[in-house]
């Protein structure tokens, strides 16, 4: 089990020696038990870092935002930026590196292993606590220790862990500069794609009916897109209304903006938005599950992304975020591809 002090010491040390210009990590939140992402720049801030089952956020997103900041301010990165990364965060970083979003030497990855655990699912926890509000949560071996007004509760982690963590095979960040905790790669708490399989047991009509209900609910708040580290485009194909105008944007380009998806939150447009997003994430989504967690209307978005992930694995043996040097799914082909048209 990781001692949070080790994370703090590592961060402090890196900042003190000037090896990194900042460290992205989690600190105690201002509301309830949940941690929040933070960026610390001074060694003395290292003690504010935390590591507990509420470190939900995929910090690769903050890395993307840091890069956007730098580009906006027209600054070169200088010293690398440190980042505390879980297994899924590190996989996301690998995909970003594959796509040249930044260079490997610009990032210092402090890997943290989730070992046999993962992050909490607040909804599952609320059911377990029967109405008592949690005030703090901590790792306790294969359990979580959750504090409420009535005192401390030991709850088996697998009872209240997020689905994505239950299915996770790579809780250890393989791509790292330094790593804390045990490497439990290949752990098997629940079968992979279990949720997807349960869903697919239904017939086609039931599944379509299900998705219609989901897409009806979508309010197009774009939280799924905003929280996704892979959705780093400055201009998204679904919103032509805010077309980015750069100095080099030609009049023709301005005139030629396309509206593939209407802004109105109708069922057909919502479906188009979500399916476009799923396709754009095929071979890139690392199943960090953040889109599903932040959805205010509880659309099970992992089902869509998992479907693409499983297709890519079954058809091409493709694992998103497995290695930096590996090919990207949609831009590569093999000579022995079973599809005749491609040879």
């Amino acid at each position, binding site marked *: 089990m990781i001692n949070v002090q080790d994370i703090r010491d590592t961060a402090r040390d890196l900042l003190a020696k000037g090896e990194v210009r900042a460290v992205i990590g989690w600190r105690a939140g201002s509301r309830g038990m949940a941690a929040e992402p933070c960026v610390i720049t001074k060694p003395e801030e290292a003690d504010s870092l935390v590591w507990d089952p509420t470190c939900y956020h995929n910090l690769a997103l903050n890395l993307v935002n840091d890069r956007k900041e730098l580009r906006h301010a027209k600054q070169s990165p200088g010293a690398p930026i440190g980042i505390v990364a879980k297994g899924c965060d590190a996989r996301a970083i690998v995909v970003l590196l594959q*796509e*040249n*979003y930044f260079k490997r030497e610009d990032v210092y990855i402090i890997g943290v292993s989730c070992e046999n655990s993962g992050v909490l699912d607040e909804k599952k926890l609320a059911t377990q606590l029967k109405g008592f509000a949690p005030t703090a949560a901590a790792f306790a071996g294969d359990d979580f220790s959750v504090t409420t007004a009535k005192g401390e509760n030991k709850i088996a982690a697998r009872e209240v862990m997020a689905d994505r963590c239950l299915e996770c095979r790579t809780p250890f960040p393989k791509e790292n500069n330094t790593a804390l905790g045990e490497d439990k790669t290949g752990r098997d708490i629940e079968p992979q794609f279990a949720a997807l399989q349960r869903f697919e047991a239904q017939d086609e009509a039931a599944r379509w009916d299900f998705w219609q209900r989901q897409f009806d609910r979508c309010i197009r708040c774009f939280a799924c897109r905003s929280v996704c580290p892979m959705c*780093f*485009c*400055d*201009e998204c*194909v679904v919103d032509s209304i805010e077309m*980015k*105008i*750069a100095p*080099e*944007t030609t009049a023709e*380009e301005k005139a*030629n*903006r*396309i*509206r*593939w998806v209407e802004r109105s939150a109708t069922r057909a447009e919502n479906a188009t938005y979500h399916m476009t997003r799923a396709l*754009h994430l095929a071979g890139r989504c690392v199943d960090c599950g953040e889109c599903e967690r932040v959805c205010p209307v509880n659309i099970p978005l992992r089902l869509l992304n998992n479907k693409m992930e499983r297709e890519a694995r079954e058809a091409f043996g493709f694992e998103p975020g497995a290695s930096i040097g590996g*090919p*990207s799914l*949609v*831009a*590569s082909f093999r*000579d022995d591809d079973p599809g*005749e048209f491609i*040879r």
Partner: protein
Amino acid sequence: MSEKRTGVFVCHCGNNIAATVDVKKVAETMAQEGTVAYSQDYVYMCSDPGQNAVIQAIKDNQLDSVVVSCCSPSLHEKTFRDNAERAGISGFTCEIANIREQCAWVHKNRDEATAKAIKISRSAIRRVARNKSLEPIAVPVVRKVMVIGGGIAGIQAALDMANGGLEVVLVEKLATIGGHMLQLSETFPTLDCSQCILSPKMVEVSRHPKIKLMTYSEVKEVSGSVGNFQVKILKKPTYVDPEACKLCDECTVVCPQVVPNEHDLGLTARRAIYIPFAQAIPASYTLDEDACLGLNPIRCGKCKDVCEAGAINYDMRPETVTENVGAIVVATGFDLYPQEKILEYGAGNVEDVLDGLQFERLCSASGATKGHVLRPSDRKEPKEVVFIQCVGSRDPAQHCAYCSKICCMYTAKHARLYKHHVPDGKAYVFYIDIRSGGKNYEEFVQRAMEDDETMYLRGRVSKLHRTKDGKVRVMGTDTLTGMNVEIDADMVVLALAMQPSKGTEEAARVLKIGRDKDGFLAEAHPKLKPVESVTGGIYLAGCAQGPKDIPETVSQASAAAAKVLGLLSQATLSHTPTVARVRNSHCTGCEMCVTACPYDAIRLENGKAVVNEVLCEGCGSCSATCLRAAIEVRNTSPLQVNEMIEAVLSF
């Protein structure tokens, strides 16, 4: 946008389109479109009066763009773009709406087909409204051509092109040119000696001032495009200087290493230092470094010690040569389907079961037995020989679905050759049916049956095995009599299927040209472009493209040569300007388009994609891959695609 003036021309294609599509209604409906200034229909738009009508209409009505609703753009796009040019507007403002293959031919209901033809035409009108007048890109031409493969196809193509005045680089991976044809004893249907008709051509290649012969060499990398390819060729070391070698054969006498001889398909052996056969071109020895006891450090060195000419040099190293050529002819040939895969016929483990090429080497005067047909196991003359046709061919369930085309003929030839060598022997042929289309071919088979008394049995052999008394028991069926047949043969010859050679696979990979479902190189059009590959400037010859016999191979090689001579007779080539273009503001430099591009036309410069317009073929792979819509093909912009979709969906 200033007001567009598009002309729409709807073709009846005789009855091809008009029978299913109400062409008059299509023309009338299109006249209502906002950007359409003129619309007409005509019985044959591609006929001379039809084409003149298009030109006249453009001039009379000041049209700035044209949609022709007719057949596939692969047929007449060029015709009508030329017409647009002749009428004084850019050819790239002309688009084809395919209402024949994609509509009339695939539908029966006239109302529905007409409605669809209207939508297809409308989508082309919406597209052409945003087409740009583009100028073709001029590409300089290198008047030099590379031929890959030194078999009869490669030799013929190289000679024809060199005689036509082109510089030719002929690359062969083995130590000599000649290919499979040189392994043959005699050729059908005239039974003339294969080596005797081929070796003069080989000599001509070696002496031709315009042919640069590179044997023991492999093509490793090809970049560039039609008119200007850059080819990296790996020249493997032979360790023998062909200029100095006196062909005295002293080196092979002292060489201690013995390995199977590929030229005789393992029926004989050779030394590590060898000359493939007496007439080899180039006439020189080669030191096979895999078979040699060791060159680094030198573990034997006997050949060098004995070489009085001083031709042997152990310090030769592989060398990479770069050649610039304007066109490439691929003539990489075939391999026989491996006997190991034919489990019912012993998978290559039953003695005296040979493949066709091995039998050729038994019959050949220069072969393993100096032209006496002796079976390999005991070197005795076989008195009963069974020939089995279609081994591996025409067997979609287990092996190759296709017919290998030449086996009927060469089996008849084998049977005849055998009878000429062993007049008192008995020859049996198991066949499915006999395919002897070709000049004098049927007569040849008849002579095998009648003059040479070959026993033709219609049926398949179910299995064979070695008997205790040293025979091969062949168990088959004669379907004409309905009887099971068992023959204790002295020797069995399998007419194995032809498959694309390893070199053909390799060439397809290096050149990035397509292969068909059986792995042979794909021609651009099965009827009208049989020697062109799908990539401009790359042509196909011989069995790399599909099974064929020698006359057909030679014809195809000459055809490919004629195509190259035509291509390279021009000073510059014009390249289509409908190529990819990058929107810098959107490019994030993710490199996906670079990986996706099949033509290596995109590279990254300062973190942004840059397109080499000469290499780009406008296939759109980049545009489909780009998640950021940062790269698009000219005249197929996302905006145009969007509007075409809307037109088809009738928004």
